[in-house]
């Protein structure tokens, strides 16, 4: 079974995303900031990461750069998921290594469409 790590400091976002992503057949882990997300990836690298931007201790973009700096191991598919929708943020996420980008609020169809870019499991 493929795994997905949800990284977001909002309890509501994590709970909605968990519901949608489990329905797509993924095993879900959660982290409420960039730092615990690093630990989670150290323990077991997920196949997909749904990544928020603005978090108190380590931001999503800092986590992403840290993640992509790793030379070895699985390269997870990263979907940036944030309220930021301007060109600067989008470009920064792409250049930092995000595979996809969702502007909040998201719903089931939007999330499915972006997860669909992963390819078959």
């Amino acid at each position, binding site marked *: 079974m493929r795994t997905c790590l949800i990284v977001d400091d909002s309890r509501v*976002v994590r709970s*909605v995303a968990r519901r949608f992503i489990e329905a797509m057949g993924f095993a879900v882990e959660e982290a409420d900031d960039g730092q615990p997300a690093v630990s989670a990836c150290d323990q077991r690298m997920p196949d997909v990461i749904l990544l928020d931007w603005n978090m108190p201790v380590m931001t999503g973009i800092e986590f992403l750069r840290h993640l992509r700096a790793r030379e070895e191991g699985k390269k997870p598919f990263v979907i940036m998921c944030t309220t930021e929708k301007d*060109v600067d943020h989008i470009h920064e996420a*792409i250049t930092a290594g995000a595979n996809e980008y969702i*502007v*909040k609020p998201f*719903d089931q169809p939007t999330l499915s469409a972006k997860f669909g870019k992963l390819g078959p499991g």
Partner: protein
Amino acid sequence: MYSNGAERVGSQAEAAMASMQAHGVLPIPSNFSVWYAYHSGHNSDLTRAIDILVSNRCPIDDRTLDDLHAKFFGPPFSEKSLCDKTIRARDTLRTVLALVEKARTDADGIGVAINDISSQFLANVKSLADLIDSLVEETSRIVGRSERLGLDLKQSSDKIDALERTLEDLRREATTDALTGIANRRYFDMVLQTMSGEAMNSGDDLSLLLIDIDHFKKVNDTWGHATGDTVIQFVASTLAQSVKGQDCVARYGGEEFAVILPATSIDAAMRVGENIRTALSRRLYVPRHLDDAVGAVTVSIGVACYEPGEPLAEWIQRADAALYEAKKTGRDRVISA
């Protein structure tokens, strides 16, 4: 510039024009550049950014195109920095020249062979120094021209200010309703997305009111469109006065309005709706001109609270269904989804 076959360029240019039209933006060169680049596929980062915006239903409006243009078509270097670099190169070369000359005169006692080699070297270095000198002169001229251009532009600043005000007016027109001055449908869509994104993050309540003027067709038919317009204006201004802070009032359709209430529960939203209904039914009347019975012009209101994760269209649909229920059960009332 891109080296394409003429036909391919033509179809890409056509596609760019079609995109500008589809998104309702001004057909100015910078907008065209962005869309042309997209359709030619030569700038993958630009293409990805636009694809992301489109897939998230974000509008590619004039402001977004300005941002895209600034990000991907900004100047690669400044003339000033080029000038600085050539000046530094010249100064370094002059220092080297002085050192070699000094070494040569110091070595005068050593031998003719060495003298020959070093004078050849000196000649090469000197011609390089002359080249750098002329480069510096040329770039100084370019910088000088730019500075004079800058002065000319400053002197036309009044014209520029006027143009900027026109652009600002155009932008405001794009987001406000001409008749009432409140937000138009386009602005409403933007605010709805922004506020629901924030509500999803915070977990706070977010409510929506859809408001429709009762029997509006009859108002227009009986008293004419001019009177109908004043009724719409009156409803709009009453709504604007009934809300506070971050609340957003928009003209949603012909005789339909929407109100977005952040940090407002369904019960509180129902109370706002009831306040609006009574404020309008108490005050809104049409002067008696004919023998037709004159009544207060009333509104029907549908209310729905956002459920994080639900598609926005579905949330609006629920409010709309509540509005329909209000109409069906007698009008002049507030119903929640």
